[in-house]
């Protein structure tokens, strides 16, 4: 069973600061997704990465997939209060399509 470890678990920063959250495993993934989840709602897909070393940008969010496809990071530049939320990574390996989720990073951006 693959495990996804996310760090930090909680992060509270001031508006305008930069931050990075991490998603790590000992397993190799075929693809990895980042989601954002608000309380009482379903995960909303932000990005999918599939190639080792891949970097994807979504406005102020930069996602990187590790060269060995075992880890990923999410970097937010100039965080805003609207970025507040739970950020989840999820991955699948081999031919399996079931997603394994991490526990998430709860981000709070203070105005």
């Amino acid at each position, binding site marked *: 069973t693959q495990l996804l470890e996310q760090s930090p678990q909680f992060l509270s920063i001031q508006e305008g600061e930069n931050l990075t959250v991490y998603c790590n495993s000992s397993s190799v993934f075929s693809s990895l997704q980042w989601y954002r989840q608000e309380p009482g709602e379903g995960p909303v897909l932000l990005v999918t990465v599939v190639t080792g070393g891949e970097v994807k940008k979504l406005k102020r969010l930069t996602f990187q997939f590790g060269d060995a496809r075992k880890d990923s990071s999410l970097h937010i530049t100039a965080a805003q209060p609207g970025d507040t939320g739970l950020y989840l990574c999820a991955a699948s390996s081999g031919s399996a399509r*079931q*997603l394994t989720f991490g526990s998430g990073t709860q981000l709070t951006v203070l105005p």
Partner: protein
Amino acid sequence: EPEVTQTPSHQVTQMGQEVILRCVPISNHLYFYWYRQILGQKVEFLVSFYNNEISEKSEIFDDQFSVERPDGSNFTLKIRSTKLEDSAMYFCASTGYWGINEQYFGPGTRLTVT
């Protein structure tokens, strides 16, 4: 923008009762999934469904659970005899591509078993 929808948003039931949770996946998607999230815990995979049959299931998905695609649009999860520990948010997801496992989630059904 196409989205996955789920009904009801909240279901309260008594222990031992049967419940059916409904989902309408994104039109033209081919793969369908159910996940659950117990309050304060991780999202957990239950089952995946493709070409009118189960393709993967977790150990959580025991004989009390079943899935069905009764028509061309709906995808349902049935729990035959609910237990207190079945209380959770249940999420439906779908994806349309074989190669890239990009799953889109619905808003969830909150199931409360009393």
